[in-house]
């Protein structure tokens, strides 16, 4: 029951946020109407619902994706503030996703995914959460990340959603791919800036 609720509710939030993002520039009431219609459609059982097909391919989204998308919609499309805490969280997610992907391909001597069912893995996530809290609580971005992690950890501990494995709660492959693309674009921009600012390179036009 809880798993089905996570499947439908999680995708309703994620798709609602995606539709909200695509609807930028439209009238507010049109945008919200489409978001609500999309979310309502996600709650319909069976093949008419996009969840029936998304679940077939991708199962349920992670709690992290659901909470991030919910925050995005509730803040009416305002992205999180820039800051070191978000950067560190993104890098952590990127590394974790790489480790889990290679784990699925049996690269590691022990199964990292299987470890995600244990309290020890939850303790590691809590330790990361505590680090953000201790290091960046006084900053706006630190507060946002700490509250985000708190929401994910508390919902996971109370419900075990979506699978009982803490890695599935904190990161899903779509979120990892988004991080990968964002960091790749960031890296490409940085390389581009370095190339254009190198001595002897032609001056950029204002």
């Amino acid at each position, binding site marked *: 029951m809880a798993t089905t609720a996570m499947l439908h509710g999680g995708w309703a939030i994620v798709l609602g946020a995606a539709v909200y993002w695509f609807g930028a520039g439209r009238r507010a009431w049109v945008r919200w109407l489409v978001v609500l219609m999309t979310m309502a459609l996600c709650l319909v059982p069976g093949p008419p619902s996009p969840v029936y097909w998304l679940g077939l391919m991708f*199962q349920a989204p992670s709690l992290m994706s659901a909470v991030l998308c919910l925050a995005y919609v509730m803040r009416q499309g305002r992205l999180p503030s820039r800051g070191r805490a978000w950067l560190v969280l993104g890098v952590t997610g990127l590394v974790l996703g790489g480790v889990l992907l290679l784990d699925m391909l049996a690269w590691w001597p022990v199964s990292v995914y299987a470890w995600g069912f244990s309290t020890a893995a939850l303790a590691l996530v809590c330790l990361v959460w505590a680090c953000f809290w201790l290091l960046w609580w006084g900053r706006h971005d630190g507060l946002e990340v700490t509250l985000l992690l708190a929401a994910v950890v508390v919902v996971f501990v109370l419900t075990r959603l979506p699978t009982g494995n803490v890695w599935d709660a904190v990161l899903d492959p779509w979120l990892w791919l988004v991080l990968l693309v964002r960091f790749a674009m960031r890296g490409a921009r940085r390389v581009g800036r370095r190339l254009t600012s190198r001595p002897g390179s032609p001056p950029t036009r204002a």
Partner: protein
Amino acid sequence: MLALVVCAVVIVWDLAHRGLPTPMARAVMPLVAADFSQPPQRKGQGSIPMPYNTPAAHSSSLLALPASHADALMAFWFAGTRESAPDIGIVASSFERNLQRWRPARFVVNRFGLGQDLGFGVRRLGNPVAWMDAQGRMHLFVVATGLGGWAASRIVQLRQSQAGQSLDELSFEVERVLPLSWWWNTSFLVRAAPLPLQDGGMLLPVYFELGLKYPVSLRFDASGGFKGMVRMSDRKRILQPTVLMQTETTWLALMRDQNPQGHIAVAQTQDGGAHWQDLPDLALVNPDASVAAMALAPRQLWLVHNSSVQSRNVLDLSQSQDGQSWQSMQRLAQGKGTDEFSYPAMAWADDSLWVSYTDQRQRISWQRFAWPKP
């Protein structure tokens, strides 16, 4: 300081709600009274009836039923117009003790009903594996694919609903999709029978097959609760493990090997499945085909396997005392050319060893063997 206290509270809450740690797994040897110094006698054979107008069948699983049941054992397999067809479903039949015959087969799981219960679509079904928990409820593990072929598979655990115990009343409800990989929970499949444990639970051998292939064992408690997973081999081209008990905590896993050398791969655990080590391949040849194995008594290990390098047209029953050297005891089936007798399953019921296997991908055949009483 507050951060650490909050984290400690979360971890203590988690520990308190997880229950006790899972104890070391100890396997159960079947209670078999037979004189194994004598060769097995074939007591019966034939084909299990197929549902009407169903031309394709594959991958059977046998489940011994309690002595109080009207039937000795139940067989499950997948059937339809062809493998991977949209109409493929899971079929069941059972062997009546009184009349000594198989009941008419019926579909017990189809992909549309399963998709409805899961809340998301299922493209194809396959490889049912049955198990009975400590409360006498049947569990059925089936392969259900997402978008893609068998490599996009997930394992769905179904549990017998309370409707009734007979074949006519048999129905299943979804327990869970087993969470086995982070990458959208692909690509794990199940094929071989579980190893029963002394705590009433079992160890289910499964395998990963997206590009590379490796075996994994899953631990379940007495009520069918999923307790964890352990990779069984460092090798990357072996699949479809079947677990064979040597002692309570020392087990062998015999596996299909995709390498062209054509042998059966082996791994061993000496601590109840907590850790596994690869062993050298068996000397037995095998054409990259599924095998079934079962320990009937200490040093009485039995194996059903295809015994040709190139083809699945020969199926043998072999015996071993140590799991390393095997002796062929019976030829179960022999054909020519592209004939296929494959995907065997074994069970011990009513003082007999039962073997079922795919026969030409059209039906499930069975044979029954018994030994004199000691």
